[in-house]
């Protein structure tokens, strides 16, 4: 086991009666990084969190924290703390007592407790709120109290179960910065559960994309965004144009009635593939200069950009994000670069995907 590994799952599965919510999942979590479990509701991401915290038992497999098997260790004996989705603050205690709860359980003396709690209050910018009742705090403030209450125990790992989902958009964005900054300052491992891809991309060192009890792809935000393993990931993370095509040979792919140069390889010649081009990588140009010609169908103003939908001659739908207006009904060219094209094979597992990339990518080109 790598020295830096703090949590390891070895073929962990979990079933409730007939429902298999986690299918033999294995992964390592490294010390001091920000991890995100990303997926739609019911994909098993919260189950992983509960397994780490000890709120549920694994049906099969081993869970190791700091190299020790913890399958039978109760939650109160694990050096892991959780920030709950509904915060789960104690309404019969004030802010100070909420944060001090874990320290009092550990029977620390009053002076140490006061010192640690006021430090936590300062860290979460809650000075002056120590004697407030929980009912008096706003949603964002409760959120901070919940984080302070968990962090004051100095856990090895902080688990966050969709903690931002109850906040409004502006506050949510603010908290994203704050959480990221907090994690880097403290150097504690954060495991963040969310179904919001923007949150995941903005904060994480590493993202686990999950689907139906399995980890579909794991990697850095850039890896996952630029090189999604399949349609599911490409669709889930950001907007994307996914069209069917044929891999003519390495670095040459056909779609939309033409053959394009690309940076992918390692497939069988003439294999059916799916091609992803992100809407922001498409540039509107004149029909003569574009790689593809589309007829503009609809246009929506999104504030930051126009969302333009067009169809090529094969009937593929293309979404373009452009700061320039297009005219509905007009023929326009779409230009893009070879590195904007990402080719995906059907039914490729993460291991096969990684192995294929190894074989055709030059040393050091892909980290």
């Amino acid at each position, binding site marked *: 086991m790598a020295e830096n590994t703090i949590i390891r799952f070895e073929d962990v599965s979990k079933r409730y009666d007939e429902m298999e919510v986690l299918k033999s999942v294995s992964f390592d979590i490294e010390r001091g990084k920000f991890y995100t479990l990303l997926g739609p509701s019911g994909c098993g991401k919260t189950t992983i969190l509960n397994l780490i915290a000890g709120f549920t038992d694994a049906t099969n497999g081993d869970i190791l924290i700091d190299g020790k098997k913890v399958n039978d260790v109760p939650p109160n004996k694990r050096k892991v703390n*959780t920030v709950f989705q509904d915060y*789960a603050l*104690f309404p*019969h205690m004030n802010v100070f007592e909420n944060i001090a709860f874990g320290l009092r*359980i*550990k029977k620390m003396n009053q002076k140490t407790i006061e010192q640690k709690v006021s430090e936590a209050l300062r860290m979460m910018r809650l000075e002056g709120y120590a004697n407030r009742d929980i009912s008096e705090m706003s949603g964002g403030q409760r959120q901070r109290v919940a984080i302070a*209450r*968990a962090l004051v125990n100095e856990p090895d790992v902080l688990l966050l179960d969709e903690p931002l989902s109850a906040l409004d958009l502006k506050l949510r964005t603010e908290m994203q910065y704050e959480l990221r900054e907090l994690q880097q300052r403290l150097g504690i491992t954060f495991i963040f559960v969310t179904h919001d891809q923007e949150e995941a991309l903005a904060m994480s060192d590493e993202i686990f994309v999950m689907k139906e009890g399995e980890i579909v792809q794991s990697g850095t935000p850039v890896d996952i965004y630029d090189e999604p393993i399949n349609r599911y990931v490409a669709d889930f993370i950001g907007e994307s144009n996914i069209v069917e095509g044929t891999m003519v040979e390495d670095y040459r792919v056909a779609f939309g009635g033409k053959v394009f140069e690309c940076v992918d390889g390692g497939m069988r010649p003439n294999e059916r593939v799916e091609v992803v081009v992100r809407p922001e990588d498409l540039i509107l140009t004149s029909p003569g200069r574009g790689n593809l010609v589309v007829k503009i169908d609809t246009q929506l103003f999104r504030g930051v950009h126009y969302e333009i939908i067009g169809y090529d001659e094969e009937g593929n739908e293309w979404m373009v994000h452009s700061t320039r207006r297009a005219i509905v009904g007009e023929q326009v060219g779409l230009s893009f670069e070879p590195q904007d094209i990402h080719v995906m094979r059907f039914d490729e597992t993460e291991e096969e995907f990684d192995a294929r990339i190894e074989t055709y990518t030059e040393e050091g080109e892909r980290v």
Partner: protein
Amino acid sequence: MMEKRSFKWANLYLVFVFLLLYAPIAYLIYYSFNAGGTMNSFTGFTWEHYQAVFEDTRLIRIALDTLKLALSSALAATIIGTFGAIGIYYVKKRRTRNTLLSFNNILLVSPDVIIGASLLILFTMVGFQLGFTSVFLAHIAFSIPIVVLMVLPRLQEMNDSMVTAARDLGANSFQVLSRIILPSITPGILAGYFMAFTYSLDDFAVTFFVTGGGFSTLSVEIYSRARQGVSLEINALSTILFLFALGLVVGYYFIQQGLEKNKRKRTAVKDPTNHEKAVSPR
């Protein structure tokens, strides 16, 4: 115009109903001050019946016994009932939980006479001496379902993830119970105790069955004295009891008000040292 009229009728109806309900009690209280000695006609004002009550050492002893019984049986029932409610709440299977709750509710609605008779049969079968202890046990028995019924809604209102959070923060089962669950359901426990206390205080039927050995409660005593011929001493005693009950209700009201006010006050206080007072010394 029409609306106003019908509104007045509603008020009148309300006044009528309350008059009807309180008239017998008022009548009884009125004659407790009658110098005439009977309830046939009011001949003059006197305190002598009250004097007689306070000079009647047997009656005073019974009154104190009744109070002692109510306080202690309510306490025991509250402890047992609270844990019972927690037990029922944490039964995982919905069917089992509902069955347990139904058993609890059946005891609440079944007639006192049946409970009293069955307890009498039980006590005599096992050869239990009838007296304070048998009455005490009987009162606990019929008070438990009330406590369960008062505490259970509080548990259901409680946010379950609080318990998970407390476990997460290192609390063991006992600490979860004492620091999270019990404080959250305290209003229910207090209400349960109060209800159990009043039920025990005014119970007649069950006590009548299982008492013996010279032990008696006020209800039973009043009943047996009333059978021997109504003396105005009983009116005086009943008046005192009525005022006591009234005092309880008023007291309960003010305690509740005080709790709420206290809560509001605590939130308003910004004294930085205040938290030390809130800390429970454990």
